[in-house]
């Protein structure tokens, strides 16, 4: 029997890293969006949170596209 412990460890660390990374970036985006809403209600400028949220969601969209690239065999 030839158990690939190294590959298993790789799957574990890559999966955990990717999940935590994507969810943290997405959560930051949601947080920035909420900040923007509050700033607008108080009449303050809301450009910085908006740009921040856009950047976070763009990064997540990138992760989704990379996921699609991995799923669809015609791409590789």
């Amino acid at each position, binding site marked *: 029997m030839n158990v690939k412990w190294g590959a298993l460890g790789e*799957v574990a660390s890559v999966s*955990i890293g990717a999940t935590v990374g994507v969810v943290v970036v997405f959560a930051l985006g*949601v947080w920035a969006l*909420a900040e923007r809403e509050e700033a607008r209600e108080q009449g303050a400028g809301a450009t910085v949170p908006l740009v921040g949220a856009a950047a976070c969601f763009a990064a997540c969209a990138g992760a*989704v596209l990379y996921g699609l690239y991995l799923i669809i*065999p015609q791409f590789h």
Partner: protein
Amino acid sequence: MDHITFLVAMVIVTALAFDFTNGFHDTANAMATSIATGALRPKVAVAISGALNLVGAFLSTEVAKTISGGIVDDTLVTPGMIFAGLVGAILWNLSTWLLGLPSSSSHALFGGLIGAVWVGAGRHGVHFDKVVEKILIPAVASPLVAGLAALGATYLAYRITRRARPGTVSKGFRAGQIASASLVSLAHGTNDAQKTMGVITLALISCGALGHDAGPPVWVILTAGTAIALGTYIGGWRIIRTMGKGIVDIESPQGFAAESAATAVILTSANLGFALSTTQVCSGGILGAGIGRRLAEVRWGTAGQMALAWLVTLPAAAAVGALAAGVVVHGGTAGTVLIALAAVAVALVIVVLSRRNPVHADNVNSAPTTRLRPASPAGAAV
């Protein structure tokens, strides 16, 4: 097409039936948490999932060259054994659906084949070291990894958004869930539909209707894709209820974390050549997301039942497969007909039993557990 014998025709029909049960058993994997948190309306969720499963079936060109990935000796496998194995897998899938238990369709298929080959070809036809390497270790490791990933992600998601207003947070994560659930569905389509295509293609090769090393004909891709998509769209509401409401009280950040974890584990392991069960990965993710949020209620009883079902899936499907293989191998065509009729009868009984307490799109979120008997009216003796 005149090469196709009666037995091969039976294999094709049962393979498509298995594909259908595979679809409705596994809708829950991708869509249960989105339905539970209200990210998607139930009917919309299963429609998206069904469509993506069909797309996935056409995308997966790399059809399994072996039925089992080396778990059984493919040179000893006859269409009769494949038929018996499929019957075992279908009946186990239907039984766990009746009980609302998310068990692995791949394990049911492997179990059915192992049982059928053991009886049909002898013990040496089953490679037990491969069973440990390809089934047992991923079965333990993958839900654990998905659970840890979802736990960490959930904890951080709640920490980051703890001061933000709850309405915006829950809306934002619900939108994210649509993307993450769709990715799980697509990955499922590319993986699971091709298993059935592989089974049908190998049966056709074994009877000479297709040349060796032939790919699946278009009609095989079309029927297998349609079967899994239809099953997905019909929706295994009983299992969706358990996964969405039964294990933990799930909120949208948890749903997003669980689905992201499942996607990450499925994609990384597929890239590195590990076969794993989508069901177990997704359940692990949901459990982890439940633990990751403080004060979230985790129903360990339901989680325990689920773990028990995972342990029993392979041997139970193997037992039915073995019984069926015994009758098919010794009974010839008459035996095959007998087993097919018996399987249809058992399937009908299960469907009738499920009618006593039906779960559907309208009541899927209204209770945490799927019961066999209808809840007794207030005041009635229990």
